[in-house]
């Protein structure tokens, strides 16, 4: 299977990226944000809307602004569209569909777009919450059984599920609460540092470890700064064949590895059942292994990794699941500084969901492209050559490996 996949290695490349400002509350509609990101992505690679002939919706893309509606507004005539909008791995996974479309001849230039407007719906974590919050949260947590068997007990934000995982993690590995808080704090402080250097995200003020400790406990042991920042924003990127990419103004960022892993589970099992692994997701390592085999590289070849991080504990567990350290050893890894911009594996170099913005892993993709083009300014990882983007859910994970020449 991997032999077949290798035929896709470096066959397509990202040529343009676009993003809006990221704000807690933009006051703008999804369509406005998406159109801005799409136009910026086109401008970035000096392509016209008429050059785009394929579209892949990310999460959330077409659900909030349909392909036809976007094309009608911007002036795109498409002959292919496909959807990767079913949950949070879709933005990272969009490369799979785009690569298939382009290499099979279904499209030449594929646009991916996505947005979130949580900020507008959900004002702030601490302040007034609008009625729409219920709808927002029910989209975060799949509806159905969870509505009957979990919601009445107060599972009103996914942070509670991750707090439960954190307590179980401490128990299984004999880690004290004081120690775990230090590990999680190291992640939060590091990502805030990156976000402040990046400057485009929601959080613009440094976070000291003391600030972190003093931040409000949301669901013990998780504090406010262990949770994603609620934000509005949109991202878009444009992919074409490697051949055509070489004629575009930017350094081509090749899709060199793609991996997918899945552990089927019931629709209500996410976050509260053992199905798929309560703490660890076997599909995370499976997706990375597949992508590494396709790219014919090892973990040591990665210049940086942008990893889905809605909660600090989620990142800690993913570092272990993905095989960057042994299980139970993620704490010492993050405390050592290995994940900082100057460490052996810089992680979430723009601040990630914790401090930059939460557009379901989409900014992780955009940041990876900026890194590989050498455009990340103060957060630039030196000699960045190959970057990894990983995102998924309890039942699936996508890894995309990007590289430059």
């Amino acid at each position, binding site marked *: 299977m991997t032999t077949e996949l290798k035929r896709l290695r470096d066959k397509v490349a990202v040529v343009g990226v676009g993003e809006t400002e990221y704000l807690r509350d933009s006051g703008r509609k999804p369509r406005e944000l998406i159109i801005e990101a799409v136009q910026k992505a086109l401008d970035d690679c000096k392509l016209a809307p008429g050059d785009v002939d394929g579209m892949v919706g990310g999460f959330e893309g077409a659900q909030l602004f349909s392909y036809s509606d976007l094309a009608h507004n911007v002036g795109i005539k498409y002959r292919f569209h496909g959807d990767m909008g079913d949950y949070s791995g879709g933005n990272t996974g969009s490369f799979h569909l785009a690569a298939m479309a382009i290499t099979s001849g279904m499209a030449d230039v594929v646009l991916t777009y996505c947005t979130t407007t949580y900020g507008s719906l959900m004002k702030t974590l601490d302040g007034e919450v609008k009625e729409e919050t219920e709808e927002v949260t029910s989209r975060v947590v799949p509806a159905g059984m969870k509505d009957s068997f979990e919601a*009445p007990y107060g599972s*009103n934000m996914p942070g509670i599920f991750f707090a439960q995982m954190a307590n179980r993690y401490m128990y299984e590995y004999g880690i004290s609460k004081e120690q775990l808080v230090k590990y999680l704090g190291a992640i939060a402080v590091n990502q805030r540092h990156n976000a402040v250097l990046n400057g485009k995200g929601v959080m613009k003020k440094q976070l000291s470890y003391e600030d972190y400790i003093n931040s409000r406990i949301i669901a013990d042991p998780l504090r406010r700064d262990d949770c994603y920042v609620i934000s509005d924003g949109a991202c878009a990127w444009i992919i074409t064949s490697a051949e055509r990419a070489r004629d575009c103004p930017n350094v081509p960022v090749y899709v060199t590895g793609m991996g997918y892993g899945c552990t089927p589970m019931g629709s209500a099992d996410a976050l509260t059942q053992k199905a798929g692994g309560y703490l660890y997701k076997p599909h995370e390592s499976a997706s990375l292994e597949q992508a590494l085999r396709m790219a014919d590289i090892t973990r040591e070849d990665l210049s940086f990794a942008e990893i889905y991080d809605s909660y600090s504990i989620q990142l800690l567990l993913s570092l272990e699941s993905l095989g960057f350290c042994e299980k139970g050893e993620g704490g010492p890894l993050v405390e050592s500084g290995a994940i900082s911009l100057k460490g052996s594996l810089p992680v979430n170099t723009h601040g990630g969901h914790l401090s930059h913005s939460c557009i379901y892993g989409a900014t992780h993709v955009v940041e990876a492209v900026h890194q590989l083009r050498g455009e990340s300014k103060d957060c630039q990882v030196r000699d960045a050559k190959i970057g990894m983007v990983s995102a998924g859910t309890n039942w699936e994970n996508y890894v995309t490996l990007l590289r430059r020449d």
Partner: protein
Amino acid sequence: MKEYIDFSKGPLPDVGDSEGAPFWEGTRRGEIRFPKCQDCNQFHWYPCTLCPFCHSPNLKWQALTSQARLFTWSYVNWNLPAFGIRGPYIMVLVEFDEAPGLYLTSDLVECRPEDVTIGMPLDVVFQRVNDKITMPLFKPVKDRQS
């Protein structure tokens, strides 16, 4: 009957939903019931149409009679006002000895956060909300070995 939790302001279960109804029938009678496969003899949770282990359609709800234990927990002292759920509360995942690897979500009552330990044996208590809804809650087993 003692009211441990004010369920009146939060969302309530859809006890008429055909897939979950047998569970709520059980709680009204003072039982926790899970579906059990009559072919491979394993419980599963949440309810499925086919047994998730051997894919048999031959399923039957059965009461759990073994010891319940605390699998994990979180102390929540903060709420989204829109949900109207009272705080603080301790949300737990409960595992039964005869159904390992399946976790029932509930709230822990009659226990201070500082006294919670993973693995602690729990007793179920049933809080009647109305004629149709009885919510299972859990509390520490008294006189347990420390």
